[in-house]
């Protein structure tokens, strides 16, 4: 007899059992493989640079946190460091590329000569930019990423040597970097800096190498073999102290911070990913427990069969073999379904993950994890499938056979094991549900935070003005004024403006703030430095608490003006009555405060507003900014007309980050939403599996007690009495699970602290809600078999005796 064929037939004859078991396996294996593939890609797998453990990001250390080095510090560091060498500086840069008929924006970086040397990666095609003397590389040569090469240049080998228009300058593509070369994240084009440091984005034509008061680029380096992070830190710290000693000003840095490249990239995601991994692990545990329970229930119904087989001469090994084949078949089906879930899961996770993680996630599921989770499934299948068969074969055949006629054979011990498994499932599901509940609450509360502006109906479009075309303040101011005038005149536009950094977008520019007549204090925060045009506040509906908006008269040469936020006014003056006060920020120009704006959640919805100062754009015309336009007919209708107006002024000007302000808000919550959705998904699946577990145990118990139920009905029990009896059993199991689960959650909840917002990790309401929710699900899961039990025909049931 073909064992495999029979196993298949047995599984086909029990579609509910097979379906639930395969689904359980698929979810357990799939979810774990998917999440672990992500965790592996992000946290475990080395970055694609040789000896990547020696690559570090370097920052100056201050008591308030780390900050980027100033150009002069970098130059000195590069010269003097003995333990961290080579070092390089890089600055993210948005290029306008005119290769076809429409100019496009491409993300990239301007890097110093040591950059490729530090990372130790050679191009997959072509070469690196050549040295043009004095330790610099040729600035008319660029290298591009593999992704850009394939998506924009057709992956053709003949792109090497091709000259393209990069922000108004002709440059030659000399190399294509290998896939995975992604420094900084998302970079598509690397261009050498003409200076010893990257150019300042606002003044790219000025060599900033000797500046000591601006901090606008990142520094990477490679520590020498055998040198520890601490030794490297001490080496750089010594340089910082020597610089401080030679300077007349108060030193900014008291040392240096070294973080591995890997840690720098994934540090912030670590907690969330480990949390997800833990949740996926719990899910695998629940799935295994569920599978075990299913198999034990099935074992009970098949005990009779095993006894018959024994009586007909089957040895223990033969019984075990048949069961093993069935378990392996089930695990294989589950594994295949799990692979499908994992493949789909990884793809979804990748698409859904925060942008900085996407590139690290391999699109294919990790085979090692698949093998591991598959092995867990097989072991569970074997342990709980073959074990009972062996036990049955060893059992008391004689009495088993006699009982056999009344249905299935079950031992009290096995029943206890099944009850315990169901209780554990409920407890584990409770833990996940509490986690999900807390995250949901935090998410809702974050969303309830008032942004400080009104996002709906606002369109935003980012621009970077190329230095070649707009080399000076006057030209930049004139261009911006011109496009805003045209956009303001568009039908349906109620307000339009521009700001150097849109709220809730990454990045910040901060500067020292000096208030006239006030002694600077050691713990004075550095306010956000924002440049805004007239109309910006109106376009985002940011209320002005006092004073006025910027106006067309606030131009270069006119009295310098500033608008401060409420928090700034309170922090520096102790009042919001600050109109007419004077401040210095960024440079030594005295600027008069002409307005006080309401606070805006500039960096994140879940972070309290920090002080911010707005400067009139025309008095400091940045070359990159975001246009914000409020329209009466919503944001969608605005994008095309805005782009048209921009191109009518400059046909070569690329636009990017074309988004509604609502979308900006949503994006800022992406990481939170990512974690929440996954945990939410896991806990839903966990709850379902636990419900299946409770259902299985209760339904099985009902099947076992058919005669008892019939007898009770024959003796006068009403259907409702039977329902109550059965449901009570289910609720007792569930209550034990809930208590155990909530206790575990109380112990584990602080793990979530970092990811919560405006909700305590041991929030009693959430715990209560979870308890009620789980009890409700279990109530339903036990009601279904209870209803069936209440419909038992007493005559039929007793006849079975």
């Amino acid at each position, binding site marked *: 007899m073909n064992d495999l064929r029979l196993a298949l037939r047995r599984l086909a004859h029990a579609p509910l059992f097979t379906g639930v078991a395969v689904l359980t396996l698929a979810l357990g294996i799939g979810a774990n493989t998917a999440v672990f593939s992500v965790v592996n890609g992000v946290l475990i797998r080395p970055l694609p640079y040789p000896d990547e453990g020696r690559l570090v990001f370097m920052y100056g250390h201050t008591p308030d946190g780390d900050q980027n080095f100033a150009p002069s510090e970098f130059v000195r560091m590069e010269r003097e460091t003995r333990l961290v060498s080579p070092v390089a500086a890089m600055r993210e840069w948005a290029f306008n590329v005119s290769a076809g008929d429409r100019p496009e924006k491409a993300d990239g970086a301007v890097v110093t000569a040591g950059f490729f040397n530090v990372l130790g990666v050679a191009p997959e095609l072509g070469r690196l930019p050549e040295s043009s003397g004095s330790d610099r590389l040729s600035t008319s040569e660029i290298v591009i990423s593999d992704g850009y090469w394939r998506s924009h240049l057709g992956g053709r080998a003949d792109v090497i040597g091709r000259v393209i228009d990069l922000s108004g300058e002709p440059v030659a593509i000399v190399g294509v970097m290998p896939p995975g070369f992604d420094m900084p994240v998302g970079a598509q084009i690397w261009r050498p800096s003409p200076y010893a440091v990257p150019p300042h984005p606002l003044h790219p034509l000025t060599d900033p190498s000797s500046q000591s008061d601006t901090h606008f680029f990142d520094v990477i380096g490679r520590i020498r073999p055998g040198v520890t992070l601490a030794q490297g830190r001490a080496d750089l710290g010594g340089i910082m102290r020597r610089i401080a000693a030679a300077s007349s000003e108060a030193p900014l840095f008291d040392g240096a911070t070294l973080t591995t490249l890997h840690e720098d990239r994934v540090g912030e995601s670590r907690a969330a990913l480990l949390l997800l991994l833990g949740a996926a692990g719990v899910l695998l545990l629940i799935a295994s427990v569920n599978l075990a329970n299913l198999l034990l229930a099935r074992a009970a119904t098949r005990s009779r069969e095993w006894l018959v087989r024994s009586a007909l001469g089957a040895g223990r090994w033969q019984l075990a073999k048949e069961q093993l084949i069935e378990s392996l078949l089930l695990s294989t089906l589950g594994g295949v379904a799990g692979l499908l879930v994992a493949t789909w899961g990884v793809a979804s996770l990748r698409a859904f993950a925060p942008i900085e993680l996407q590139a690290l996630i391999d699109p294919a599921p990790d085979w090692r994890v698949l093998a591991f989770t598959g092995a867990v499934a097989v072991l569970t299948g074997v342990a709980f499938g073959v074990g009972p068969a062996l036990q049955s074969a060893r059992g*008391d055949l004689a009495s088993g056979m006699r009982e056999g006629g009344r249905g299935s054979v079950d031992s009290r011990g096995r029943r206890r094991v099944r009850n315990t498994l169901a209780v554990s499932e409920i407890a584990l599901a409770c833990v996940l549900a509490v986690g999900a509940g807390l995250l949901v609450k935090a998410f809702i509360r974050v969303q309830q935070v008032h942004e400080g502006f009104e996002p709906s109906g606002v369109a935003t479009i980012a621009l970077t003005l190329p230095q070649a075309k707009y080399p000076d303040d006057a030209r930049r101011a004139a261009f911006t004024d011109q496009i805003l005038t045209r956009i303001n005149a568009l039908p349906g536009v109620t307000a339009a403006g521009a700001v150097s950094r849109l709220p809730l977008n990454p990045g910040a520019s901060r500067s020292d703030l000096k208030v006239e007549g006030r002694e600077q204090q050691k713990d004075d925060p550095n306010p956000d430095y924002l440049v805004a045009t007239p109309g910006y506040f109106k376009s985002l509906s940011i209320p002005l608490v006092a004073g006025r908006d910027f106006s067309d008269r606030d131009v270069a040469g006119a009295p310098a003006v500033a608008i401060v936020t409420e928090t700034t006014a309170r922090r520096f003056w102790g009042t919001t009555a600050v109109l007419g006060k004077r401040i210095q920020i960024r440079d030594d120009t005295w600027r008069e405060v002409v307005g006080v704006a309401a606070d805006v959640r500039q960096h994140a919805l879940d972070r309290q507003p920090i002080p911010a100062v707005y400067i009139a754009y025309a008095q400091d015309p940045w070359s990159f900014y975001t246009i914000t336009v409020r329209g009466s007919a919503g944001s969608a209708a605005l994008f095309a007309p805005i782009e048209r107006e921009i191109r009518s002024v400059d046909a070569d000007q690329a636009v990017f980050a074309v988004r509604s302000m609502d979308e900006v808000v949503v994006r800022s919550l992406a990481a939170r939403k990512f974690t929440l959705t996954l945990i939410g998904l896991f806990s839903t699946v966990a709850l379902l599996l636990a419900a299946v577990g409770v259902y299985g145990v209760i339904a099985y118990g009902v099947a076992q007690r058919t005669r008892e139920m019939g007898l009770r009905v024959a003796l006068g029990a009403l259907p409702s009495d039977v329902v109550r009896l059965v449901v009570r059993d289910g609720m007792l199991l569930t209550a034990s699970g809930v208590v155990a689960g909530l206790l575990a959650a109380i112990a584990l909840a602080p793990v979530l602290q970092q990811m919560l917002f405006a909700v305590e990790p041991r929030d009693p309401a959430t715990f209560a809600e979870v308890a009620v929710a789980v009890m409700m699900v279990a109530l339903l899961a036990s009601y279904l078999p209870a209803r069936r039990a209440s419909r038992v025909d007493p005559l039929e049931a007793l006849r079975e005796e």
Partner: protein
Amino acid sequence: MIALKNIEKSYPIAGGRVFVLRQITLDIKQGEFVTIMGPSGAGKSTLLAILGMLDGAWTGEYRLKDHEVHKLDNKKRVALHKQYVGFVFQQYHLLDDLTVAENLDMPLSYRDIKKSERQAIVADTLDRFGIVGKKDLYPTQLSGGQQQLVAVARSVIHQPALLLADEPTGNLHSAQGREIMELFRRLNGAGMTIVQVTHSEENAKFGHRIIDLKDGWLVKEAR
């Protein structure tokens, strides 16, 4: 063929032991057809299980052919069971997932018989029991009598020397019951030793000898 001497079986209970079988001494000859009778709880099925080596926890001496069963470990008893014993149950115990032919094949598959040979034996048995037309049906598609017929066929397909039957007609109406008993008589006539447990006086008459059990004691033997 079978010699039992002072067979006893008991369970521990609080404050002592409860005896299911007491000092059973009994000989059964090759080719005999023995019926065990007695009220419920007399120990009939237990005795049958001990004879079939499905129950291992007893004391006394049991000799089956040349084998001293009481001295054998479980593994050897299983081997002996496999070699000599066929079992018929009151509840048929056919496997619902297997067709009639597959149910018949099962005991053979546990006995290292080549597939081609097994197929021949199954075909022959189907023919002998007049169930060729049912070979591809599943047990649930058969009547009770047909199911028991298949169960008997399955229990003898490997030609055991000893056929043990526990209330083989208990679930059948009288005409079907008689057919099964006639079948037993034919098998016995062909040399098979049969021990049956029954409550039915009528069925008991098919055997050569009746053994009466009461409260675990062998109280009467009649021919």
